[in-house]
Structure formats: C-alpha cells, structure tokens
C-alpha cells in the first residue's frame, strides 16, 4: 500500500468513524435512557424488594408472570398470598392483618394449569391463598384461542439484541410523540417507563396502582365500557361465548386443590366481579351459559377439601356497587375488592384473623370515597 492509498484509507476511515459516531450517539442515548428507566437491566435487578413509594412497570417488556413468581418465591415468601389474574391486583396490603406477611401475585396466572405450575414452583407455602378464578378459564374456546398453556411462563426471561433494537425504536417514537418525559426519566425512582411516565405499575405489595386511570379515566380505552361491549358483541378477547364449563379445566382445578391440600395451604377462591352494567349486557346476549352454571359446577370440587372455599361475585349488583368504581368492564377498583373480602370474612369466620377489622375496612373505604373517584360517567 503506497502513501497515497494510506492517506485515502485513513480519510475513508475518518469519515466512516464520524458517521458511526453520530449514529452511535443517537443509539447510545436511547440505550442510556432505557437503562436509566430500568427497561434493559438484567433480570436479577428486578427481583428485589421495592421501596414503599416505588413502582415497577416496564413499558416495553412483558415480564409480569415471571416477575410475580420470582418475587413471591425469592423475595416476599408471604404467609398470605393473593394469586390470580389482573382481576385480583387491586387487593392491597392495607386489608391484610399486619401480623401476616402479604404479597399480591395478581397477573401471574392466566389459566387453571398455571395455578398448579405456580404453586408447585414455590419453595415455601403460604398459609392462606386468596385466588380469583376468571370465568373464562373454564371456557374451552378462550383456552384454545387466547391462552394455550406453556410450562415455561415462570422461567427467567431472556433478553436479546433484536429486542433492544425494537425498544430503541419504540423509545424514540414515544419521545417524539411526547409520551416520554426525559426530566421524569432521570429523576424518578420508579422502575420501567410505564411506572415513570404513567405512574402505572406494581407497588411494593405486588398490587397494581394506575395513576392515569384515576386522573384521566375518560381517555382510557374502556371508558364507559365501550371496548368490553364491543368484545361482547364480537364474542372475542376473553368474552368468547360458551354454554358449558370445560370439564378438563375443572379436573385441572381439582389437581391444584390436591396440591394445596398436600402443602397445607388454605385456599379461598372467588369468581371475580363484572361491572353491573357489563354483566347485564352479557346476560342479555344469552350466550354465556357457562358463566351462570360455573359456581354450581365448581362448588362440589371445593367441598371435597377441608378449609377450601369458593365464593361467587360474578354478579355484584346486589352488593350496591357502582359502575364507576370499575376500571373497566371486569376490573374493579380497590373499594370493590374491599367489599368482596368483607363479604367473605362475614361468611367464614376462620378468615377473620388474616384480615383487618371491619372498622378498619370502613375507614379504608371512606378514604377511597373521599377522593371522589369516578372512573365512568355511567
């Protein structure tokens, strides 16, 4: 290589380096922000106790199931465990007697098989397990279409570079759209962009807090149950029609109760509530026969096990609840769940030691009511 060539190749290298520097600066800034936000940390970083005012809510990854499992098993090891789907996430530490440790693993379960998988993986058994049984877990169409079972849901998730590229693109798109506030990002102590920017995520007790839903309900997708009513009309996205409960799922539930009995876990299960308006619309379709029969189908299974009980809160119209106390058509707010627990304790006195007194529940309700939260205009 002669002198001229050496000069030319150096010039080329310098120009290429400048280009790559600019590109790296843009990509690097994205990576830095994602790192600072906690979006691209190693998984072990997430599995630790949160501070009292800290939220965990990743914006670009979905680790909810494995996060809840590892938090339950490795960090909290609770005596009272709330276990189920997102429909139990509103049960707070404040309703549980402070003598007992508590964790809410809501969001970890999306079908009956996962209940067994979750409990089987725990190294320490809780004394009491509060379990929500989503009605659609017993609808064969839902299981086949939406939630095929996978035995690896609680495995430690793997991060790959392709995901990192996607996250960088998503981050800049959100930055341009104004969804990400850089000041908040570098000053907040929450983990994850959803927690930082929307104050939406899991609290230290594992229950979910969503600031945006409370302060701006009218911009939510399911405001006045618009989205859920569409699902009921189309018979999709959890609201698939069905006449009978799937017997296979009932057998799987029985296996789960066997497992709990063997581990001396007291199981208190309930069929979670729908907003009264939504439940009425579902009834009008006459296409959800399996839901009406579900309690009767499941009760004999629970009666086989001492200390296990089942409650039906599918229709909460008689409890005097309001539509505006539901986040959406099938997620009640904390006041709804306080009411559910109150009802259960009234019916089963053996539960009373695990929860706060009725007076304390009233106080918690009054605190909620004083905030004058109206999640819908209905």
């Amino acid at each position, binding site marked *: *290589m002669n002198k001229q*060539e050496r000069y030319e*190749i150096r010039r*080329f290298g310098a120009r290429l380096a400048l280009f790559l520097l600019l*590109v790296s600066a843009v990509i690097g800034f994205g990576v830095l922000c994602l790192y600072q936000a906690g979006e691209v940390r190693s998984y072990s970083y997430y599995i630790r106790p949160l501070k009292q005012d800290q939220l965990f809510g990743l914006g670009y990854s979905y680790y909810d199931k494995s996060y809840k499992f590892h938090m339950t098993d490795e960090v909290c090891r609770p005596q009272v465990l709330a276990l189920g789907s997102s429909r139990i996430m509103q049960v707070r530490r404040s309703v549980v007697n402070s003598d007992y440790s508590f964790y809410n693993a809501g969001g970890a379960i999306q079908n009956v098989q996962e209940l067994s998988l979750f409990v089987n993986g725990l190294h320490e058994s809780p004394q009491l397990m509060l379990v929500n049984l989503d009605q659609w877990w017993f609808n064969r169409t839902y299981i086949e279409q939406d939630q095929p079972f996978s035995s690896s849901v609680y495995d430690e998730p793997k991060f790959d570079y392709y995901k990192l590229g996607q996250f*960088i693109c998503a981050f800049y798109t959100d930055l341009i759209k104004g969804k990400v506030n850089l000041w908040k990002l570098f000053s907040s102590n929450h983990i994850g962009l959803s927690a930082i920017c929307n104050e939406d995520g899991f609290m230290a007790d594992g229950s979910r807090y969503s600031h945006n839903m409370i302060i701006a309900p009218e911009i939510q997708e399911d405001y006045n149950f618009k989205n859920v009513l569409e699902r009921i009309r189309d018979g999709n996205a959890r609201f698939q029609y069905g006449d009978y409960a799937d017997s296979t799922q009932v057998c799987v539930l029985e296996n789960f109760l066997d497992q709990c009995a063997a581990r001396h876990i007291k199981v208190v299960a309930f069929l979670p509530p729908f907003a009264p308006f939504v439940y009425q619309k579902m009834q009008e379709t006459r296409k959800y026969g399996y839901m009406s029969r579900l309690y009767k189908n499941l009760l004999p299974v629970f009666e086989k096990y001492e200390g296990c009980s089942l409650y039906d809160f599918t229709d909460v119209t008689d409890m005097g609840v309001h539509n505006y106390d539901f986040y959406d058509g099938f997620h009640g707010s904390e006041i709804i769940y306080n009411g559910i627990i109150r009802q259960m304790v009234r019916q089963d006195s053996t539960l009373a030691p695990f929860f706060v007194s009725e007076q304390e529940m009233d106080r918690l309700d009054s605190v909620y009511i004083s905030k004058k939260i109206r999640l819908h205009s209905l």
Partner: protein
Amino acid sequence: MLFNSIEFLVFLPIVFVLYWFVFQKHSWQNLLIVTASYVFYGWWDWRFLFLIAFTSLCSFYSGVLMERFEGSKRRQRMVCTVNIVVNFLILGVFKYYNFFADSLAQLIWSLFHYQLDWVTLNVVLPVGISFYTFQALSYTIDVYRKDVPVTRNVVEFFAFISFFPQLVAGPIERAKNLLPQFQRDRHFEYVQAVDGCRQMLWGFFKKVVIADSCASDLNPLWDSYADFSGISLWGLALLFTFQIYCDFSGYSDIAIGCSRLFGIRLLSNFNYPYLSRSIPEFWRRWHISLMTWFRDYVYIPLGGSRCAQWKAIRNTFIVFGVSGLWHGANWTFVCWGLYHGCLIVLYKLLHINTKDKEILAAGRWLPSVKDTCRVVVTFLLAVVGWVIFRAENIAQAWDFVSRMFLTAFDDFHFRLGSLTTMVVMLLLIVVEYLQRDKVHVLQFSNQGLFRWAAVRWTVYLTLFGAIFYFSFNNVSQEFIYFQF
C-alpha cells in the same frame, strides 16, 4: 449470510480490514476473498460449498483443457459442450427435476389417466445456483469463443465465481469484466469507497424500508385476493411491483457498493426500469446482467433479429421463455417470460419506437406528454406481468388478472399501516425521477441544496434511521431472488 443481518455487519468490517491491511498482495487478497466467500455462502448450509466448488472446478478445467486442445476446434467444442451439459445437469437436478417430473406426470394423467410413479427428489435448492452457474458458463463459452484468455490460477477463478457480494443474487458477472480485476493489484480509492457506501445505504433502504414494507402489507392479503375489488387488486399488484424492484435492485446496489469497498467494479444491473418508455427499453434497464447474458449466449447465436421475421419472433419467444424458466421451476415464470416476449413482438410488429437510448426527459425537468403516457403504459404492462410472476399457479394468475380488469372499481381496501408503504413508494418514484441520470440515487451533484455537506449528511442519517427503525419493526423477508 444475509446482507441485512447482524452476522454480515460483523463479517464485512473484518474482511475489509484483513483485505487492505493484512493481505496486501493481490494473490493473497484473492485467497481471502475465496475464503470469505465460502464462509459467507456456507453460512446457509455448508453442503452447498461442495456444489459451488465442483461447478467452479469443472469450468476452470474446461478452460485449461480448451487451451491444451488449441488447434483442434472439434475437441474444444466437445470440452465446452461437456461443461455446459454438466452445469445444466446440476442445475436441472437441483432446480428443475421435480418440476419437470411432476409436469410430465400430470400431462400423462390428463391424456391417458395413467399414474406415473416418479421418484421425486427431496433436495434443498442451493441459494443462488442459477447465478453462479450462468457466471461459470459464460467463462467457458467466452474461452471457447476466444473472447477471454484462459486463466491458469485456480484461486483467481474461484474468486471470480464465488465473489461474495454478488454470489447469491448477481449481478451475473462476465469473465471479461471481473476476472482481469482479480489478476491485477487493487488500489484503495477513497471516492469509490465512499460512493460504494452510499450505494449500499440506498440499497439497504430499498430492501429494508420499501420492499419489506410492501411485503408486510401484501403477503397477508394475497391469498384472499378474490375478496377484493378491481382497484384493490391493482393496489396489491402495485405493492408487488415495488417489492420486487426494491428487493432485487436493493440487493444489486448493496452488492455493487460492497464490491467497490474492495476495489472491484461490478456490472450495473438496474437503470431505473420503471421510467422506461417501452417494454424493450424496460428490458434494457431491468436485470441487465441476465438479459445481456441471454442476448450474447442465446439470442444472437440463434440469429438475433438479423434474420427472417418469423425467426426473429421465434428467437424472442425462446429467450423470454427460457429467461422466465431461469427464474424458477413453475409455469407461472414461463408464462411471465412469454407474456413479455409477446409484448416485445407486438412492439416490433406495430413498429412502435423502442430505440430510446437516453433516459427519460434527459436535460429537462419534465417529460413530454407523449413520453409520460408511454411510461405509464409500460409501467402498467409491467404491473400485469408481475401478477403472473407472483401467482402460485397459472389459474390464479389468470383469475387475478381477469378480476383486475373485470371487477368493479370501488371499495379501495387498504389498512392504515399501508399509508407508510404508500409514502415510501411515492418517495422512491420522486427521488428516482429526480436522480435518473445518476448511477444511483445518492450520487449528489455539487449544485443546489446538496452542495452542503450538512444536508447530505442529514439525508444519510435519516436513511440510516429509517433502515434501523424498519429493521426492527418489519418482518424481515429473505431476498426474493435468492430462490432463483
């Protein structure tokens, strides 16, 4: 190894550094090119390497033998013929055996209701086999015709056949152009390298942003085409028209640009084909390396156009029929080739001017009304051709094309996601028109807005950003022409 992969992003700089800083003599550089090319090709399936090595050895030794038989035309012809037969046999077995066996079995069944129990071969089609086979054949034929001297250096020859940028999807190089470049010292040229990078950038943009976006919109809808109105079917056809162009010309741009980093100049493969004013002009601008191959080794030896008119027509049909078949083992490709053959014959018979040598509206801002109409007609004829090319079978092609013309032109069916695709397609048309006199779109003149480095760099960074974004948000598609 795909150009649009992380592996290639690591592979290319390593080869570049070794090529210019470690292996500085051209003989060592050739050895590096062969090694790198075999790694590049073997990344798909290492067993493919035996095939390309065998093809290369056959053509290399046929050249050596022809030199040895200097003075005996008969022996030389025999060597040349044997090599051509061997190459076509390999191509036939791997690419066409099952196709012809099935076609014959179907024909016999339809005529005599007799089921032929053919043994179909369960073989994987080696990537780019048509490209390197044709390249190897061109060397043998050129040596036989004494158009190129015989090479006695096996490394040089292997580098010529397997040069990684153009190995799997062309341009199909000629020994006359590429082989001498491996026989002399290469010098690093700053201007060439920088322009090569620009060409690669534009190639990646076409592939990742436009072609993959078109594919993402098109693929889910193609099978349910019968549900759509005429205008929507034209929309689908248009998507494939841009997909195949950006996919293939994008690959060629990356290949040519990449080669320039190594001081190698490849033949041009595309020259703004959708700005053509006639179908013959379209074929002078589309896949130039393949069409010149067929012109030199099939069309002209058959008599070309300087013979009786019926013979010229026959020759046209043969060339386009065979070139269709080259694209794949399906009758749709043959039909697509014959469709273009028909159009070219029609142009000739109707004495429509097809002699346009200069690019559209050369030296002017806008084309004349007449030229605009000609471009639009040519483009629409090409669009119909691409439907035949894309169809699964002849029946589907016929049904699709019939519906394009016969069903109502209402209810334009497009998803919102298609808006981005439409914007990038429109962008492509505009920039290609504005830059139509350049080798590639990112060759900026030192006039106007682009004389400012800041503006040019903004363009480069924007293109890179778009490539980055679409790489992670589109489903990455393999280059269409790999299957050929």
